[in-house]
C-alpha cells in the first residue's frame, strides 16, 4: 500500500510540474529576415495550404512557442525568402524530392527524434537500404492524417516486401489484409534493438513484448506464462520454431502440414541439443509411429506451450 502511495505521489509531481512547464511556455518567436512565414506560401501553393489545417504539422504553425525555423512550411522546407524572391524553383528551397536519403532523415529527426520509438532509426535495415521517411510517408498526400502514410500501411510494406505479401495470401494468416491487424502491431519499421530474447540476430525490426520477448505474446497472452514447466522452444528460440507468423498453408500457422514432423524434427535425440544438452528427448517406446493414433502429438500433449501440472505437457 505504501509503495503505491509513493508511486502516486511521483505521478502527481510529474503531472503538476508538467502543467507548470506548460503554463510558462510563452517564448517569443525569433525574427529572422530569411523566413517569410507560411502565409507567403499560400499564394502559390493554395492546394497544400488550404488543406494544411488537417495536417499534424499544422501544430507547429499555430503553437505560440515554436521558433520560425521549426514552424509551418519553413519548419521543413527551410527559409523561404530566396524562394519567394526567385518566384519559386526547387533550387531555392529545401525540396524533399531533391534531397538525398540521409538529408531527409536528418530533416525529419530534427523534431521527431523525441519519440524514442525512433531511437534506432539510423541503424535500421530500412535506413541501410536507403528507405527513409518519405519512402513511406507522404506529408501532403497522405491517405490518413494519423500517420501520414502514403498508402494503407500494409500496401506501403508490400511495395517492397513482395514475399511477405505472398505469405499473407496463404489460407491461414494473421488478418492484415482484412484490416484487423497492421504490420506495425509486430514490427517497428523505424528500427529496433538487437532481439536478445533470442540470439540477438533475428528477427529484424520486430517489436518486443511486455517482458522483452517475441511480439507474438503481446496478443497471445495465454502462451506467455510463466509456467512451471516451460516448453523451452517457446522461451529460447521463440514461436518461429514451430510457426510461420505471416501466413501458412497449414492450420495454426504451423511450419509443416502435420504436427508430428514439427515435433520429431527436434525430438530426435541427436547431438548435444536441448535443455539436458544430450539431445532433445526422443519419444518413448510406447509411441508407435506406425499407428496413426500417435501422429497427432498435441492430442495428448495438449499444453504444448507450457504447463503448470505436467512436465510433458499432458495437462
Amino acid at each position, binding site marked *: 500500500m505504501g509503495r503505491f502511495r509513493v508511486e502516486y505521489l511521483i*505521478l502527481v509531481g*510529474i503531472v503538476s510540474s*508538467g*502543467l507548470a*512547464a506548460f503554463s510558462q511556455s510563452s517564448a517569443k518567436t525569433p525574427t529572422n529576415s530569411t523566413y517569410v512565414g507560411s502565409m507567403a506560401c499560400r499564394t502559390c501553393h493554395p492546394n497544400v495550404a488550404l488543406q494544411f*489545417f*488537417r495536417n499534424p504539422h499544422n501544430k507547429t504553425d499555430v503553437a505560440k512557442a515554436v521558433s520560425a525555423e521549426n514552424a509551418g512550411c519553413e519548419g521543413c522546407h527551410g527559409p523561404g525568402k530566396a524562394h519567394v524572391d526567385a518566384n519559386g524553383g526547387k533550387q531555392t528551397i529545401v525540396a524533399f524530392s531533391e534531397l538525398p536519403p540521409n538529408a531527409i532523415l536528418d530533416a525529419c529527426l530534427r523534431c521527431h527524434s523525441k519519440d*524514442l520509438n525512433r531511437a534506432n532509426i539510423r*541503424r535500421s535495415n530500412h535506413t541501410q*537500404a*536507403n528507405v527513409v521517411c518519405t519512402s513511406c510517408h507522404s506529408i501532403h498526400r497522405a*491517405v490518413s492524417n494519423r500517420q501520414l502514410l*502514403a498508402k494503407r500501411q*500494409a500496401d506501403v510494406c*508490400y*511495395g*517492397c516486401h513482395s514475399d511477405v*505479401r*505472398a505469405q499473407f*495470401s496463404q489460407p*491461414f494468416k494473421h488478418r492484415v*489484409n*482484412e*484490416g484487423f*491487424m497492421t504490420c506495425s502491431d509486430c514490427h517497428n519499421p523505424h528500427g529496433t534493438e*538487437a532481439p*536478445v*530474447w533470442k*540470439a*540477438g540476430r533475428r528477427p529484424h525490426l520486430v517489436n518486443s513484448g*511486455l*517482458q522483452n*520477448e517475441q511480439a507474438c505474446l503481446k496478443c497471445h497472452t*495465454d502462451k506467455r*506464462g*510463466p*509456467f*512451471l514447466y516451460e516448453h523451452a522452444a517457446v*522461451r529460447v528460440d521463440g514461436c518461429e*520454431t514451430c510457426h510461420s507468423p505471416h501466413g501458412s*498453408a*497449414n*492450420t495454426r500457422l504451423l511450419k509443416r502440414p502435420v504436427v508430428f514432423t514439427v515435433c520429431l524434427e*527436434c525430438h530426435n535425440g541427436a*547431438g548435444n*541439443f*536441448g*535443455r539436458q544438452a544430450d539431445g532433445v528427448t526422443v519419444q518413448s*517406446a510406447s*509411441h508407435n*509411429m506406425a499407428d496413426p*493414433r500417435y501422429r*497427432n502429438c*498435441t492430442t*495428448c500433449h495438449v499444453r504444448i506451450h507450457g504447463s*503448470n*501440472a505436467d*512436465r510433458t505437457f*499432458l*495437462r
Partner: protein
Amino acid sequence: MRVTWMFTIALSLTVWGQPTVAPTPEPAGSPRGDNWGDYNITNSWEVGYRFITVDGNMGEYRSDVNYGNGIRLLGGTLGVHSRDGKGKWIDELLLDVRGLGNDPYQFSSFRMQKNSLYRYDLLWRSNEYFNPALTISNGNHQLSTNRQMQDHDLTLLPQSKLRVRMGFSNNAQNGAGLWTGQWFDTRGDEYVYQADVRRYQSEYRVGADLELRRLKLSVTRGWEFFKDDTRFGQPVFPAGDNTTDRNRLTFLRRDEPMHGRTPYWRAHLHSELATSFTIQGKFTYSDGERNFIYDEAARGTDRLGSDRNRQILVSGNGRRPVTTGYLTLSWHPNPKWTFTNQAGYHHSRMEGDGRYSELNNGTAGLTLLSFQSLGIRTISNVSEASWQPWKWAGFFGNYQFSERRIRSVELLEPELPATAAPIEQINRLKAGTGGIRLQPVKPLRMSFSAEVGRNDRPFYPTSDRDYHAINARAQYRVAKFDLSSDYRSFTNTNSTSLFLHSSSGRSWAANGGWRPFSALQFDGGYSYIHLDTLTGLAYFANFTLLDQDRSFYVSNVHTFHAGVQTQIKKRVDFYGGYVRTQDRGDGRTAAGTTSMPDAVRTPETAPAFVPAQVFPFSYQAPVIRLSILLHRNLRWNAGWQYYDYGEKFLKLQDYSAHTGFVSLSYSF
C-alpha cells in the same frame, strides 16, 4: 480538381494490396469537407449487406475467410478539425471504423486532441476466430472464440518538453472450444471434452518523457494482470478416439484457473552529447507471476476394463523476472560515415513450485513438491558502419557477437526421491553482414547484402547453425510507372553427430504498377517462395527404435496477383483483381510417392512421412467492385469476391465460396 483528389486517395488505397471486397475505398462526400463554425468536418459512412454462399468444407472457409451474411457498417470515417488550430477543447477528432455490426474482423480507431494540451488515442478490435484444426488433431481442437482488444493512450502536453503518458489495454478471449486429454494411464485412450474459454488480460501504464537540452528521458511504469478462468466440461463421447480401446471416461470435471500479474519498469535515455555523437540506453525490468490451481476429477474404466476414479490437485505459482538493457553509441564524424555500437544484455529466469496430489481409486498417491528452473542470459554486441562515399553509392556492414547461457534445473523423475539435473550450456553466435546500396539515377534504387553466421551450439537440431543469407532489391519508380523486384535466400546447415539438418529457402518476387493516365491503373506481381528441409528423425515403430530416418519437406509457393482500376466519366469507379496462391510441392502426382534424394533415402522411411513431405494446394480469389457516384454525398457500391481452395491429395477441406456486398456510402 476535387474528383481528381478523391481519385488519388482511391488509387493510393488499392494500388498494391488486394484487401477483402468491402468496404469500398472510394469515400462519399467532398474531401474538403464542410465548415461548421470554426471546424471543418469530413465524413463518409458505408452501410450495406454482405452475402455468402459456401460449397464444401465450411470449417475451412471459416478458418480462412469467415465473412457471413447480414447488414454491416462496412466502413466509416469522420474527421473534425479546427480550422485555425485553436479550438476550445478539441482541435482534431478522427474516427475510423470497419466491419461493425457482425463482421468477423471489426476495427475502430479514435483520436481526439487539443494542440499542446492532450492527445487521446483509442484502438478497438474484435476478431471472430474459428479453426477446426482438422489436419493436426482430427478436428478435436476446434476453437470458436471472440477476441476483443482495446488500447487507450492519453498524452498530456504532447508538444512540451515534459509529456505525461497514461494508458490502458485489455485483451479478452471468450468462446467455445474442444480439448483433448488422456486418462487413467499413459497408454489410455484420448477423449474430447468441451471448454468454455475465458481469458482476460489488462494492462495499466503511466509514464513521462522529459527533454532537457540534449537529453531525452522516458520512464514508464506498468502493471499487467492476466487471468485464465477457462472451464472444462463433460467429455463429448464416453468412448475415446481409439475405438478398439476398452477405456471409458464417464465423468470429468476440470478447473484450472490461472491468475497473475506482471509489473514492469521501462526507462529510456537518449542523449546527443555533440552533434556528431549520440548515446542511448534502454532498461526494462519485469517480474511476471502466475498463480494456478489444477483441480480434476474423472471416473471411468481403464484399458483393462477395471473401474477407475482419479482426482488430481495441483497448486503453486510460477515466476519469471526479466531484465534487459541496451547501450548504443553512435558517431557521425561527417555526412559520409556513421559508426554504431550496440551492446545488449538480457536475463530471464523462470522458476516456480507446485504441489501435486493424486488420488487413484480413493488411494492417496504421491504428493511432492516439484521444482524447476530455466535461466537464460544473453549478451550481444553489434558493431556497425555505414559509408556513403558518393551520392549514388554507399556501403554498410556489421559484425555481431552473441553469447547465450542457458541454465536449467530439470526434475528428471517425478517420483521420489526426485532427481534434479542442473545443466549449463553456452552458445556463441558470430555473424557478419556486408552490403551496398546504389542509386545510379534518381528513380532507381538498389541494395544488396550478404550475411554469414556461425553458431557453435544451437539449442535445437533445426536452429540456425552455419548459415548464410543473401538479400537483393531493386526499385524503379517514376510518376506513372513503378517496378520492384527482390530476391532473398537463406541456407542453414545444422549437422550433428548422427544427423544432418539442412534448410534452404529462397524467394523471388517482382511487382509493377502502371498509371497511363489518372483514371486508369494496372498493377500486378508474381512471387516464388521455395523451401526445402532435410532433418534426421528418431522414433519408435512397434517398439523398435528407428534412428536413421529422414524428414524431407519441400514447398514451392507461387503467388500471382493482378488488378485494374478505372474511373469512367468521373462517376463510376471499377476495380477488378485476381490473386492466386499455389504450392506445387515437389511436383509429385500422388501423395504416396517421394522425391527424397537417393543419397538420403533409407529403407526405414515410414509411409507416414512420405505424404507429409509436401502439401500441394491452390487458393485463388478473384474480385470485382463497382462504385457509382449518385450524388455529391452518395455512392452506390457493389462487389463480388470468389474464394476457391483445393488440396491436391486430400479433398476433405476443399471449399469454394461466393461473397459479395451491396452498399450505400453517404456523407452528411
